[in-house]
């Protein structure tokens, strides 16, 4: 399972970073990207789904 941030859509609301800090990092301008290659360990699956469900820009997806 992988988490993917579409940088074209991200406007830096930072909800994903608050909800899934183990999966998401943000740059100096507040734009988000997946940590590493975005692999989601099973214990963070719920956090990944929360990040998806709370991004107002629909910028985050999960690929199984």
């Amino acid at each position, binding site marked *: 399972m992988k988490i993917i941030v579409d940088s074209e859509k991200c406007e830096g609301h930072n909800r994903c970073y608050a909800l899934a800090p183990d999966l998401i990092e943000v740059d100096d*301008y*507040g734009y988000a990207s997946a940590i590493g290659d975005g692999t989601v360990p099973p214990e963070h699956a719920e956090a990944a789904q929360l990040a998806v469900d*709370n991004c*107002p820009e629909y910028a985050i997806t999960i690929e199984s």
Partner: protein
Amino acid sequence: MTETDASTSDGLDFAAATTEPVSDWTTDYDIFDPDYVADPFPIWDDLREGCPVAHTDRWQGSWLPTKYDDVVALARMVPELSSTDPIVVKPPSDDTSDPNAYSTVNAPPISSDPPVHTWSRRLILPAFSPKATEAHEPFTRQLCRDLIAGFIDRGSVDAAGEYAQQIPPRVIAHLLGVDPDRADDFVEWVNGVLGAGLSRPEVRQHYRTKIREFFMAEIADRKANPKDDLISELLAAEVDGEPVPDLHVAGTCNLLLVAGIDTTWSSIGAALWHLATHPADRQLLVDDPSKLDNGIEELLRAYAPVTMARVVKEQTEFQGVTFEPGDKILMNFPGANRDPEAFENPDVVDLERQRNRHVAFGVGIHRCAGSNLARLEMQVAIGEFLAAIPEFRLADGAEVTWAGGQVRGPRKLPIVF
């Protein structure tokens, strides 16, 4: 409209806007109507079902969308819709040879379109990143504790005027590097721009000029004595190898003062109003403070304070209506947040809601640049309040008053504990 004192130190009229009763909300709505200000939710629900993009000729005319998908689509409609005039009631007619003309005080990036918007937003984003924002936590927490210590022994407080309203002006002063003891002035100026000034352009202009003069003096001072603050940072910044013009820096500081104060105190106040009137929700957060983060998001969704406007640049067909150039469109983020097609049971405040793509901070390129700071202020303000005062309720016979129009929040909130 605002419920602060009708007379100000400058002798200007701050009383509520005068309105005629509304009989048809679909064709003749009034954002300053006392019913709309106090309780807009049933009005939006009716409009969403019958007339999802309503129109009025009042206050120089505007359109009011109420569906989530429509509001989001309109917020993304750049460049057909422009941000150059985000307030519905137009400013007084402008004489550009007048150094105090309204148009000499802009508020980039909120009042800008690309390409100016792009660089002027990028200029301030680093100051509001999650990491930069965290640095303001200790100051904010101490401020909240000191304010609470000032009234806790009394057993009662106006939670809007004596608490919510006191926090953001001092946090912004701290951030900008200006004198926090001017907080009462900032409150008056901001009320002049976004409270009374929404319906009274001459009041708005008066306070915009005041704010500009204040920041031009601060800018002159920082040029002589640079400090470790945001004003100095903006002055040191370069865009395409050129320094940023002083008026641009003053305009951005103007925005940060105005956008950072009225909005945040409205949100803190609305959150306290909800907790004072919903004991089970209050208890939930007292019993488990780890639920605060999610709970604040839900309170932001339910009581989103901010409705900025766009002005139409090109004739545009939208959901069966035609926007003509010059028309104003209200970005009804608060109404979008109550759309049943986007949120399950939208009128139920569920502090444990898991799917919450609320747009209290807007959406698209103008997404609130200060959203991390606003969230920090809310979490600290509510967290400290609940920790010190776990039980509170509205005072008997309390007259809660709300300001509204384009920024909604309680202005008097008498509570007892």
